[in-house]
């Protein structure tokens, strides 16, 4: 029958409709879904779902029953395992809301030379949404940890691409010290609503300032480990960089790779969109966001002469620790012609973004090179 027959090309669901994403977002991979945002889509102070990048290692779980969702805390270093329903979490513990910056460890990977393997993210794998949930610390205190606790590890409901039910696509975590920070949440809301499915409904671990892969989605178990967690994507080269810097393309042994923790200082010009043409007598107002992993951004600058001179931008304090900060500046151009506006953030340790792509690493993580937009003045 021809009726009801759909050609192959149309069988794939429309990801923009499926995930309610802006049509200008870029699909990097559809098996699994990996979708990147663009600088100009990230202009809001608090990122809406429509502009949030999606990064998956496995298949998004289906048929989630939130009313029967159970979070189990177990592992070598708990005094005894304990389980909580979502209702337990919501009613027995104090709720907190924080704006938290989550950036994919591989954001900017596309610029590395020689190229690094994986999704070729440009600049859009970062967001700062408002997350509501309970502190992981409060849960861990309620369960009781032994003195030998080293790491916490999440386990989730997503499934492996191979379909093998015995394999986890990803199970990462963080040292106990990060887990015990006030801003590390087990979140059940994003931007005041249930978390969208692609972002971890009904429960997500959120650890701002660290590679977003630490913030496990669809979390149903957290193990307190007496070793550095050794789950999938914790070992080998995954989310690791050479402990000592290496030449581009150099081979690095697994034992010489170190786990990425706090993300480096970075910023993004979110207005105007690159390619703006303005008249010479006009002032160009730029704005954007800057973030610095576990730290704060202390200075924001722009340059219209490829770094020969820098001017200071206005910079807001963060809404809370680990939230990105907003900057703005008004630019007058001295002559007509082609310009690039480059943005550079400096963190509270005095460390700035490089203008060139930083140290090469085998998996292309941590590219925090300055963002720039093109402007023509006539």
């Amino acid at each position, binding site marked *: 029958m021809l009726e009801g027959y759909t050609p192959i090309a149309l069988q794939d669901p429309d990801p923009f409709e499926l995930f309610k994403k802006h049509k200008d977002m870029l699909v990097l991979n559809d098996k699994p879904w990996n979708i990147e945002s663009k600088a100009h889509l990230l202009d809001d102070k608090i990122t809406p779902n429509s502009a949030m990048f999606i990064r998956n290692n496995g298949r998004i779980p289906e048929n989630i029953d939130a009313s029967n969702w159970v979070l189990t805390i177990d592992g070598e270093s708990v005094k005894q395992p304990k389980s909580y329903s979502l209702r337990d979490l919501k009613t027995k513990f104090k709720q907190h809301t924080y704006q938290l910056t989550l950036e994919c460890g591989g954001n900017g990977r596309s610029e590395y030379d020689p190229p690094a393997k994986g999704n070729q993210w440009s600049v859009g794998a970062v967001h700062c949404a408002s997350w509501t949930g309970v502190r992981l610390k409060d849960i861990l205190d309620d369960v009781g940890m032994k003195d030998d606790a080293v790491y916490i590890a999440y386990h989730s409901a997503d499934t492996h691409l191979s379909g093998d039910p015995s394999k986890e696509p990803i199970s990462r975590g963080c040292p106990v010290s990060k887990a015990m920070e006030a801003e590390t949440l087990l979140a059940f809301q994003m931007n005041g609503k249930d978390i969208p499915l692609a972002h971890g409904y009904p429960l997500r671990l959120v650890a701002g300032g660290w590679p977003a892969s630490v913030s496990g989605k669809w979390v149903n178990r957290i193990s307190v480990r007496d070793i550095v967690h050794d789950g999938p994507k914790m070992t080998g080269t995954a989310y690791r960089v050479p402990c000592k810097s290496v030449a581009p393309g150099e081979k690095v042994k697994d034992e010489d790779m170190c786990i990425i923790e706090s993300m480096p200082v970075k910023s993004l010009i979110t207005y105007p969109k690159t*390619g703006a043409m303005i008249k010479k007598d006009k002032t160009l107002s730029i704005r954007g966001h800057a973030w610095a992993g576990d730290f704060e951004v202390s200075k924001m600058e722009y340059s219209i002469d490829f770094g020969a001179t820098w001017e200071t931008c206005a910079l807001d304090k963060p809404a809370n620790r680990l939230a990105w900060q907003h900057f703005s500046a008004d630019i007058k151009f001295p002559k007509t012609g082609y310009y690039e506006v480059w943005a550079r953030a400096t963190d509270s340790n005095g460390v700035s973004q490089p203008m060139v792509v930083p140290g090469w690493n085998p998996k292309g993580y941590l590219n925090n090179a300055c963002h720039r937009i093109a402007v023509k003045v006539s």
Partner: protein
Amino acid sequence: MIEDKDFQERIKKAERTAYRAAFVTAIASVLLLITIYYPSFSFGASNTEVLAEVEADEDRIENGIHVRTGLKEAAGLMTVVNNCTNCHSSKLVIQNRMTEERWNETIKWMQKKQGLWELGDDQKIIVDYLVKNYPPQKKGRRLALTDIEWYELED
């Protein structure tokens, strides 16, 4: 980015193909309806032949591109399609630019960690296809901005 441009062009091609496929289906449906209401009407081809043609289209090539996956038509194409697009998207293959050595390492990693089967003689065909059609590009320490869509910025 050069790669972005390539990639976006492929997406656009895929979209155009989808529209074409939708158009073909629409035409086929009209033909079917006409045949149902006017059984004596003949197009010189039966319905089953029309259907078979649409299904065989799954691996069709347009402008040197395998429409379903976006991969370039070249020696080894179907070996790549059949071995490399079951577990992950062809988009992942197209984005990644690697040397022969690194593709072989990547295949070994997929076999160790991701459940990829032994490829046997197909491995050389696959790697040759990838290295020839998707070679690494020199980017240096920073590329110039390219593919800028210029627009008048209103106040």
